[in-house]
């Protein structure tokens, strides 16, 4: 069904960014506009989601050019869910930024670029054209390059070199894959590709293209041998920025993998085994990396990698149940990872360090904060009935039904390592007796800033905490949603019919 308004989440973020650029030096106006407009954008996403939940897949042909000739925007339940999650995380980070980002950074255009990043994310989720997906990815990475280097500290520049290089390499590989795909079938529309790729006789070349896509998106989503840029760079920028990166940037890579490998390249046995192997190794290497670290944000960076493994495992098993688990985990992970990095930022503001060996006595000193921070930490571990538990239950069940016992072992090991890491963190930071930390010069502590800004830093953590509690306690809603998406992904015929019309064009 055609509905031109599904592009609103993209246009509205662009409009917000432009409006913010008019207030380049007036940082207080920027704080206010960014907060209010993020809230409106959240409203738009909720509208989009409810519209699609009731009416099914909606499309919009940009410029009125019919698919497969023009660029098509497609909003199915999966896209709408991702847009909704982006808006929630974006709103939380916009509020947190208003409290925590220094004026010097804001005067270099922090807020406009944040909204350009959110626009790119919404675009990547809503597009139905593979080259357009490439363009949205480039918008995302160029905005993230600016955000990661904004401020220009030595560690930021160093981390950015690694981040920029590997992301540019990923883009080059992605572009190469698109070139081969276009040479193979002469189309760029994803629904059209889905039909045409199935008819190509040269399966070898199709598989090579699939592997190129896997490598390109694999670098972006940080799967096993390709993740080294992530722990080198994610702890360097200010906490608000690493929160939005942790929550959404790797997940957009996973979204692309889920979309491409369910719609265009249906995993055969080789690809399925490859994905499962990669998932197991991603879980293992991310988990072991997290065990070694003492800096809290680096720990969380490795945990991101570990948990990307769960998502890839769900894709690798490629059954409807496994995808339910992966999708539930994706929904849970975006909220929790964003929250974790915000919590790390809050701890830094309170204590002036993130080294868990130096921190201590947090529970005695700040009992209310500790309770608030316990929500994302224990949700991450997946203690029932918190949100991480249900997703892992589905993944393990799917693994049992498809006979992937080794993978179940790795998933359990990954959960166990996560538990170990969080338990270590909890014992060191919250329960260990307080060690006095010398005051750092140049750090503006939490009790030194104005009450309004303090609330701006606590409120997003509360908001995301409530969201993850909702995911945990009302898991049946999320399960219904995940089942719906997973059924859509396993039967792409609905998607294809919606884009190309009921009767596909014959040449």
């Amino acid at each position: 069904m055609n509905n031109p308004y599904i592009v609103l989440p993209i246009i509205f973020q662009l409009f917000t960014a432009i409006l913010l650029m008019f207030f380049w030096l007036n940082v207080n106006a920027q704080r206010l506009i960014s907060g209010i407009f993020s809230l409106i954008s959240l409203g738009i996403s909720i509208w989009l989601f409810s519209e699609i939940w009731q009416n099914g897949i909606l499309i919009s042909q940009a410029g009125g050019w019919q698919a497969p000739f023009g660029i098509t925007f497609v909003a199915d339940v999966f896209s709408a869910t991702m847009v909704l999650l982006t808006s929630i995380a974006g709103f939380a980070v916009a509020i947190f930024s208003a409290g925590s980002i220094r004026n010097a950074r804001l005067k270099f255009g922090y807020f406009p670029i944040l909204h350009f990043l959110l626009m790119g994310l919404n675009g990547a989720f809503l597009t139905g054209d593979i080259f357009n997906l490439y363009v949205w990815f480039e918008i995302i990475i160029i905005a993230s390059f600016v955000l990661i280097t904004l401020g220009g500290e030595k560690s930021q520049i160093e981390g950015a070199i690694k981040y920029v290089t590997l992301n540019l390499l990923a883009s080059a590989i992605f572009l190469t894959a698109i070139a081969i795909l276009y040479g193979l079938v002469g189309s760029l529309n994803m629904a059209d590709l889905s039909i045409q790729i199935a008819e190509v006789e040269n399966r070898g070349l199709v598989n090579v293209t699939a592997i190129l896509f896997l490598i390109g998106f694999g670098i972006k989503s940080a799967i096993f041998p390709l993740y080294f840029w992530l722990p080198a760079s994610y702890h360097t920028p200010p906490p608000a920025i690493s929160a939005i990166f942790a929550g959404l940037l790797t997940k957009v890579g996973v979204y692309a993998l889920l979309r491409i490998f369910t719609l265009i390249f249906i995993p055969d046995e080789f690809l399925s085994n490859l994905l499962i192997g990669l998932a197991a190794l991603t879980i293992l290497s991310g988990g072991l990396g997290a065990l070694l670290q003492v800096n809290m944000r680096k720990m969380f960076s490795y945990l991101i990698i570990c948990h990307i493994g769960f998502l890839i495992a769900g894709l690798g098993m490629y059954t409807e149940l496994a995808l339910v688990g992966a999708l539930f985990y994706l929904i849970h992970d975006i909220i929790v990872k964003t929250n974790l990095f915000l919590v790390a930022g809050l701890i830094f503001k309170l204590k002036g360090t993130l080294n868990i060996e130096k921190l201590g006595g947090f529970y005695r000193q700040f009992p209310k904060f500790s309770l608030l921070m316990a929500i994302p930490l224990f949700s991450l571990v997946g203690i029932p009935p918190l949100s991480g538990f249900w997703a892992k239950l589905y993944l393990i069940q799917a693994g049992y039904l498809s006979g992937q016992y080794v993978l179940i072992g790795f998933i359990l090991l990954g959960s166990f390592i996560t538990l170990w890491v969080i338990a270590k963190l909890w014992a060191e930071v919250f329960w260990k007796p307080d060690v006095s930390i010398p005051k750092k010069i140049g750090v503006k502590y939490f009790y030194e800033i104005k009450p309004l800004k303090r609330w701006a830093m606590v409120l997003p953590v509360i908001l995301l905490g409530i969201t993850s509690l909702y995911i945990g306690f009302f898991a049946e809603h999320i399960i219904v949603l995940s089942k719906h998406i997973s059924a859509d992904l396993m039967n792409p015929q609905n998607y294809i019919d919606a884009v190309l019309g009921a009767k596909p064009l014959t040449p």
Partner: protein
Amino acid sequence: MEILLIIIIGLLYAAGIYMMLRRSMVKLIIGLILLGNGANMLIFLLGRIVKGKPPIIESTAKMFTEIYADPIPQALILTAIVISFGLQSFAIILVKRAYKVAKTDDLDELNTTDEIYE
């Protein structure tokens, strides 16, 4: 013509990857640029090269009756070039800043963010 382009594309990819594997930051950037150019040439080649048949249709005709040059690869390449222009200029400025801050051109020296204890 095609075989020449194929060789050039291969050379560009090989040179780009070779340059990226060097330890110097400047060579890294050159490698990325070469790789991007290789990808653009690949799109051009895989769009099927047709000589002297522009995709212009007679005002009386409704559809193409004979073979014509596909205009889409050129649109794709143009987009990719503009994007890579922006990204590469950003990367060049970043490398310049990194050289100023770290005072070295050697990528192996840039390892402080990977240390456990900073």
